[in-house]
C-alpha cells in the first residue's frame, strides 16, 4: 500500500470514528464538548513541530514554525484549560446538590 493510500484510509477511518464518537450528548455538555474538541483540533502543533524539525537551519521556516506553534499551543492550552474550568463547575454543583438533596 502506498503512503498516500494508507493516509487516505487513515482519513476515512478517522472520520468514521469521529462520526460515531458523539452520538447522544446532553445539551449541558454541548459547550464544553465543542470547546474540548476545539482544543484537540490544536493537534496541529505536530505539524508546527515537524516544520521546525525539518527546517534545516532555514530561518524563515524556523520563524513560521515557531509562530505556528505559538498559535496552535494557544489553542491547545487555552482550550483544555477553559474546558476544564467549565466542567469543574458541573462537578462542584453535582456534589453540592447531592449533599443537599
Amino acid at each position, binding site marked *: 500500500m502506498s503512503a498516500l493510500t494508507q493516509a487516505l484510509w487513515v482519513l476515512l477511518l478517522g*472520520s468514521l*470514528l469521529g462520526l460515531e464518537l458523539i452520538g447522544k450528548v446532553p445539551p449541558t455538555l454541548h459547550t464544553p464538548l465543542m470547546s474540548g474538541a476545539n*482544543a484537540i483540533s490544536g493537534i496541529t502543533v505536530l505539524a508546527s513541530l515537524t516544520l521546525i524539525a525539518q*527546517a534545516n537551519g532555514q530561518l524563515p521556516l524556523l520563524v513560521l514554525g515557531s509562530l505556528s506553534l505559538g498559535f496552535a499551543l494557544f489553542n491547545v492550552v487555552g482550550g483544555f484549560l477553559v474546558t476544564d474550568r467549565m466542567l469543574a463547575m458541573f462537578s462542584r454543583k453535582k456534589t453540592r446538590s447531592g449533599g443537599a438533596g
Partner: protein
Amino acid sequence: MAGLDLLPAVIDLVAVLLLALGIKGLSKVSTARSANGLAALAMGLAVLGLLIQQPLSPQAWLWIAVGTAVGGLLGLVTAQRVPMTAMPETVALFNGCGGMASLLVALGVALYGPGGTPGLVEQVSIVISVFVGAITFSGSIAAMGKLQGWIDTPGWTQSSLRHGVNIALAVACLAGAVALPGAMAGFPLWLLVVASSLLGIGVTLPIGGADMPVVISLLNSYSGVAAAAAGFVVGSQLLIVAGAMVGAAGLILTQVMCTAMNRSLVSVLFGGALGGAAPVGGGGEEAGYTRITSCSAEECALALEAAERVVFVPGYGLAVAQAQHALRELSKLLEAHGVGVTYAIHPVAGRMPGHMNVLLAEADVPYEQLLEMDTINPEFPRTDVVIVLGANDVVNPDAKTDSTSPLYGMPVLEVDQARQVFVVKRSLGAGYAGIKNALFELPQTAMVFGDAKSVLNGLLSELRSMGVGKKVAA
C-alpha cells in the same frame, strides 16, 4: 533495535486511542472532566512521540521553546481571565488560532519546501490547508467580533449582493488553487490566502447572532479539517486521524444544534440573518408594538411573593448583565419563602447550547432545578409566574402559531401558558433574530424594563423590604 523503531508508532497509537476515548468521555456528564484531562494527556503524548522521533538541533529547540512559551503562556492567561459569559467568543478565538497554525505550516512548506519540491499530493494538501485554515481563522475572528459587538452586520450583507461577492471570492480561491501547483511561491498562493480569508469573513458576517453557535461549531469542524490537511502536508498520520475525528465530531455537533433550532445548515449559511424584512441595524425599533404593559419591580415583587410556582427563563441578556449570581440569590430568597423555583433552559438559550447551564452552574444553581424544554413545557399551565430574563426568540409564541413568522417551527418555551409573565428586557428592541415577539403584547405579560442585574437586585430589595424569607433567615 526493532523495538526502538516501534516505540514512536506505539506512542502514536496510544495517543489516538486516548484522544478517541477523550472525545467519547466528553459527551457524558460523569466522565467529562477526566476525559478532558485524558485528551490533554494524549496530546502531550503525541508531542513527546514526535520529539523523540525527530532529530532536533539546538537551534530548533530554541525556536520551539520560544513558540511554546509565548503560545502556552497566552493560552494559560486567557483561559484563566476570560469570564464565563464570554465562552462562545473565546472558543471562536482559540479555534481561529488553530486554523491560523495550519495555514502557517502550509505556507512554510509552500514557500520554503523543507523536504525538497512538494509532490502533487503535498501540493493538493497545501491548497486545502491554506484554504480551510484561512477560512477558519478569518471566519472565527469575524464570529468573535460579532459576538463581542465589535462588528455590526453591514446592510449590503443582507442583500443578494453578498452572494455575488462571495461567489467572486470563491472563484478567486479556485483560480489561485488551480494555478498554485505550477508556481508555489508566486502570486497564486497569495491570491489563495487573501481570497480565502475574505471569503471566511464574507460568509460569516451576514449570519445573524442567533445562528452564531452553529457557525462556531462548523468552524470548529473546519479547523479539524485544516489539521488533517496539514497532516497530509507534513506526512503525519496521527495528525490526519485526530483532525478527521474532530472534523467529523464537529459536524455532528453542528447538526445537533441545527436540529435544536429547527434550522437547516443550508439556511443558516446562506439564508442570512433571520427576518430579513426587519430593518437592519435599527436595533432599537419600537414601532409595531401597540399593547405593551410595563410595570415596576415592586409590582413584579408582589406577584412573586404571592406565587407558588415560579419559573425563570434565562437568556443572553442574563449573560451580558452577569446577573446569574443575583438570580441565584433571588431564587434562594423565594425558596426560603416556600416558593417552588425552577429554571427553564431552552436548548439554544444564550449564544451556545449549554451556555446557560454553564452560567447557572457557576452561580451554584442545583442541577435538578434546571429543566429542559420538553420537561418544563407541560408545567407552564400550572405555573404562577414566569420571569423571562433577557431571552426573546426562544419564548416567541409565533413560532408555534404564525406560519409566516421566520421562527415558525422552532421549538420554543411555552411561557404564554403561564398565568403571569414578566419580561425583563432593556428595551423593546427586537431579539437577535430581529423579529417582533407576540408574547410582549399578551394580556398576562408585563414588561419590566432594565438591565437584568439591576432589575433582579431591585426585586431582591423589594422582597426583603416586604419581609420575605426573614423567618428562615433569622
